[in-house]
């Protein structure tokens, strides 16, 4: 298992040496900072705007990293033929996949932590008391991002980067509006469409489960059980995605 760790660390190193990542993080921090200015303009609710935008930035930029880096995790190694020298080493294909997965999750974690620090720093500047509830929302954002990394990884095992990106984006959007999909038959009730949307509802991850930004910012109490359930849901989903990725990748001929 230590080999999975080495592969993960190398994957982490790959992403932190990529300039794209710095641009994204810089952009995200700028966005959090600009919420400060926005907050100043509006007369009150300054703090609420900062929290809203800050959490949104953590989520959106985390997603950008999860998808844009995630879709290249395997396909880039195949296209560039770096796998040719790696896979004959004493590792299994599954170890390779797990290493890639955890490596990117680590990158995403570091980014989320950096942005979280930025957000709290801003709140501190405004002499706000430390508010641990935000961490609940951020934690679930991170759980969501690990699911998204899994989705990107799965697509990356059988298709090229661009296509995988489109697929992963599609899964996110559809998965987010999953609940609406379920009720789609009340809108259209003819043909196969309701069946398809229903199938998608059960198949795709329901990303709304991880979204507790609004109640947290509004100061509502989000029960711990809800967070535990959402986390368990995420873990199960990630496991399924990893099993599916392994199933695909173990059969793949590397041409």
């Amino acid at each position, binding site marked *: 298992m230590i080999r999975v760790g080495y592969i993960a660390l190398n994957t982490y190193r790959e992403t932190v040496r990529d300039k794209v990542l710095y641009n994204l993080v810089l952009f995200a921090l700028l966005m959090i900072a600009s919420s400060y200015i926005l907050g100043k303009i509006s007369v009150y609710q300054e703090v609420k705007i900062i929290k809203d935008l800050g959490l949104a930035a953590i989520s959106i930029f985390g997603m950008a990293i999860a998808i844009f880096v995630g879709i290249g995790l395997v396909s880039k190694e195949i296209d560039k033929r770096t796998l*040719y020298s790696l896979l004959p080493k004493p590792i299994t294909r599954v170890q390779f996949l797990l290493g890639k997965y955890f490596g990117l999750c680590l990158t995403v974690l570091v980014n989320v932590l950096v942005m979280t620090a930025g957000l709290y720093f801003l709140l501190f500047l405004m002499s706000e008391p430390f508010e641990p509830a935000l961490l609940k929302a951020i934690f679930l954002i991170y759980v969501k991002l690990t699911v998204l990394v899994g989705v990107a990884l799965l697509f990356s095992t059988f298709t090229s980067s661009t296509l995988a990106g489109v697929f992963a984006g599609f899964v996110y959007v559809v998965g987010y509006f999953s609940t609406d999909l379920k009720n789609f038959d009340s809108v259209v009730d003819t043909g196969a469409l309701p069946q398809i949307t229903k199938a998608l509802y059960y198949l795709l991850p329901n990303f709304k489960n991880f979204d507790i930004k609004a109640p947290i910012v509004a100061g509502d109490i989000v029960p711990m059980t809800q967070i535990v359930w959402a986390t368990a849901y995420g873990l199960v989903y990630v496991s399924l995605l990893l099993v599916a990725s392994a199933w695909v990748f173990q059969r793949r001929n590397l041409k």
Partner: protein
Amino acid sequence: MSAVETIGLTKDYEVGFLKKPHRALDHLDLEVEQGEIFGLIGPNGAGKTTTLKLLMGLVFPTEGEARILGKPVDDRRMKAEIGYLPEQPYFYDYLTGRELLNYFGQLFGLSSAERRSRADELLAKVGITSAADVQLRKYSKGMTQRLGVAQALLNRPRVVFLDEPMSGLDPVGRREMTLLVRELQGSGVTVFFCSHILPDVEQLCDRVAILDKGKLVAVGRMSEILDVSIDTIEVVADNVEAELEVKLRPLCRSLERVGDRVRLSCAEQADFDDAAAELMQGGGRLLSVTPVKQTLEDLFVRKVGEKAQT
């Protein structure tokens, strides 16, 4: 136990939109003994790289099986005892040469002290010590090839697979590569390599297999498959009068006039002895005598040509 063994190894690639199968390797049976230098040769597209990819578990066989050191190709303990240089290798370009070797050393389970000393040693051996801390994106093709050789030897493998090891190297590099393979053989390592550069193969290999369009057309010791009986002796002479030429003709396989000289070739030692005697008597002057061995290239052209005709 043989170092490498393939039994009826076959690979079909699916090509095009219709996934039409294309046979890249057709029932290959090979056995490579431990300690041998074995060359797999053949024209472009013969299936050499495909054979190595099958052995490395990068692609899966359509039929047949392969074993390395008596183990199936996905055996992890066996994989710790082999090294592989891919064709036109490419490595993580965000790493430096030293970092790459360290990473692969980790995967081989080497201790950190071992990784450090092994990396230094190998970087020096392949002559890229000065570029050890340069990112691989700045490496030239030849430097990448050298690093590829270094990573293939990192774990002191018992069997090394090299796909076109000479490609991308300058003449000096080729010479070094040849010496390196000899050195490996000296320490008991089995070397299995593919090449289409025949003179290199000829100087290096104990045995060769010739592959063409996925099929094995010849395999054996160099001395066996290069038929010694058809060696020829080439002679250049001058002062050959027309009368003398008539006497020489029946003794030669070919005879041609080049300016005021005559170039002739004899198929047998006895013919040459007679021809030399005639030359002396008839006032001709012997300028040079060269025994010409059949080269691997001749054989290669003949074998591959034969098949093309049938």
